[in-house]
């Protein structure tokens, strides 16, 4: 049967190549969409880790989370809890580009991990994510406050690509609160025995989940686009396989007339659907590498996608090929007599 399958693929090579190309383009988009969703699901938890260093967060009782709420309190409220590290997180701008400024202490913290330079040791010193395209030594204005980049980090963005910028608490209070001694979060190595009534506890997971919820609609929209892309891929495969089945009606009737079984003949058709689809997926796996750098948002394709998408594609190919198989099953061997 492999001979029949291979020869048929050769005989219809231009159609096969066109189909593989079309499926490859659709699957490239599917890989990128999957990567976007992956990034949206991964980014908020990484941001929580970069800003919170796997510690426990204290936030104002009415706050949804440090990245999503503007609620601030006097630093004195947080300082009631022994060992707390006050933090001020808020939106700012560097040279007109929006960033999320994180002001806190750095002694004893491992995060953010640096790709270059050092952590801030004085007001006006910053660690920035590499997506800002700033380098160590660059002098910038953060919400009109002069600062200098002393370190860089990576994978430190939030809310779909907004870069995190790390500075001292004093600097953040100057840039975000006109120098007022206010904060909107505190970090602790472990949960305190008593939490003041004005505050509540959040784990790093809670903080990440709070930021992720803000992107839920975007993720939902992308998921819908993904479903449409699967549908397009299915329709392409189904149409090509069905047309092939129609063209092969006479061949199929002859093969049946000489003793061929429905199952065996259908297998060659489904084999074509599988080969075209999996070649399309393989092409997409290569193509996405070329397209990804031009994508405005970070794309993080989950490791599981590399086996889930081919398996799902194979299942889609088999389902899409069902129409062709149905056509073949309806072909009677006596049709070979013409």
């Amino acid at each position, binding site marked *: 049967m492999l001979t*029949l399958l291979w020869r048929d693929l050769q005989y219809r090579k231009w159609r096969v190549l066109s189909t593989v190309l079309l499926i490859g383009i659709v699957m490239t988009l599917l890989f990128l969409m999957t990567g976007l969703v992956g990034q949206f699901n991964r980014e908020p938890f990484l941001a929580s880790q970069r800003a919170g260093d796997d510690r426990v967060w204290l936030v104002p009782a009415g706050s949804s989370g440090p990245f999503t709420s503007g609620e601030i309190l006097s630093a004195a409220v947080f300082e009631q809890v022994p060992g707390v590290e006050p933090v001020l997180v808020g939106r700012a701008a560097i040279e007109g580009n929006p960033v999320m400024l994180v002001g806190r202490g750095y002694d004893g913290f491992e995060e953010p991990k640096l790709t270059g330079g050092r952590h801030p040791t004085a007001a006006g010193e910053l660690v920035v994510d590499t997506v800002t395209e700033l380098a160590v030594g660059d002098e910038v204005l953060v919400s009109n406050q002069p600062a200098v980049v002393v370190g860089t980090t990576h994978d430190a963005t939030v809310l779909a690509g907004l870069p995190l910028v790390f500075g001292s608490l004093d600097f953040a209070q100057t840039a975000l609160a006109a120098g007022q001694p206010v904060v909107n979060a505190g970090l602790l190595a472990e949960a305190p025995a008593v939490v003041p009534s004005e505050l509540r506890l959040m784990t790093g997971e809670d903080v990440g989940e709070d930021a992720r919820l803000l992107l839920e609609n975007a993720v939902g929209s992308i998921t819908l686009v993904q479903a449409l892309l699967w549908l397009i891929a299915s329709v392409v495969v189904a149409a090509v396989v069905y047309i092939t089945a129609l063209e092969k009606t*006479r061949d199929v009737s002859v093969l049946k007339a*000489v*003793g*061929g079984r429905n199952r065996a003949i259908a297998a060659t058709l489904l084999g074509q659907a599988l080969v075209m689809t999996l070649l399309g997926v393989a092409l997409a796996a290569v193509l996405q590498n070329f397209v990804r750098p031009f994508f405005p948002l970070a794309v993080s394709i989950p490791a599981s996608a590399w086996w889930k998408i081919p398996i799902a594609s194979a299942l889609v190919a088999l389902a899409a090929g069902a129409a062709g198989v149905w056509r073949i099953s309806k072909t009677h061997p006596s049709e*070979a007599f013409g």
Partner: protein
Amino acid sequence: MTSESPVLSVSDLVVEYVTDGYAIRPLDGFCMEAAASELLALVGPSGSGKTTLLSVLSAMIPATSGTVTMNGTNVLKLGGRELEDFRRSQIGIVFQGFNLVPSLSARENVAAPLLIAGVRRGEALRRADAVLDEVDMADRAHHRPSRLSGGQQQRVAVARGLVGDPKILLADEPTANLDLISAEAVIGLLQALRDRGRTIIISTHDARLLPAADRVVEMTQEPTQPEETSKLANFAAGEVIFRQSDPSDYVYEIRSGTIEVIRELVGGGEERLATREAGNYVGELGPILGFPRSATVRAVSKVSLAPLTAHQFKAKTSTHSRGSD
């Protein structure tokens, strides 16, 4: 018929199918035998049941009744895996128009029945090469059908029919679409295969094939040549004048009374197609064209009919025409 015991025996074969709700019987009580090493030609006009018979012999369509025995096996009783094995091993088929798979080379086309039966590729191709050699096509084994002439394609089709080493080879119009030289070559090939012990049954319109056949089986009864008569035929109300599928003889001129034209329906019912009264003709197409009756005609009231031969009818209606079949 040879004196040897038949390898194929067909008796009282009836095949009925439905077209537009009407029951059609291309084969009705058909009988035939074929012996080993016999080249038998089935001849008859389109619609006479040649291809239907080949379809039944190759177990592709069921028969309504009757028996088809091939090498001791009642073909009509086969089903499932037995049927597929029978098609593959007992019967070789050569289709009209070659019907080669265009994506496969000549040897792969020949090997296809073995490949889809699960025979290993090497073995299937080895046997294909041997059969291609038998039909003198070994030097074209790697060519696709599009690069072969009509005669060469037909030789490959014959080779495909032989690759399972069947006792009986069925060929549907094997010389149709072939030029004289190619047709002669195919006829010679079929005779050679017959001489090597195979039974070959061909359906054909091609008169060139008939002298090569050991026996010719007419699929339709010769049209009767009725004698001219001036005697009127009288029928009582409800009496059948002629039945659907009967051989055609006379055209009838209705002198008095009313007749109805009816067609048998699947399940035993009937449908009235028309009624005719005195002054009209009925049953004219069958005698003129040599076809069996396409409908039943029955007297509605007492009728008196004047039987006319086709010749008389044509002469009588040369200036005007009335009636219908």
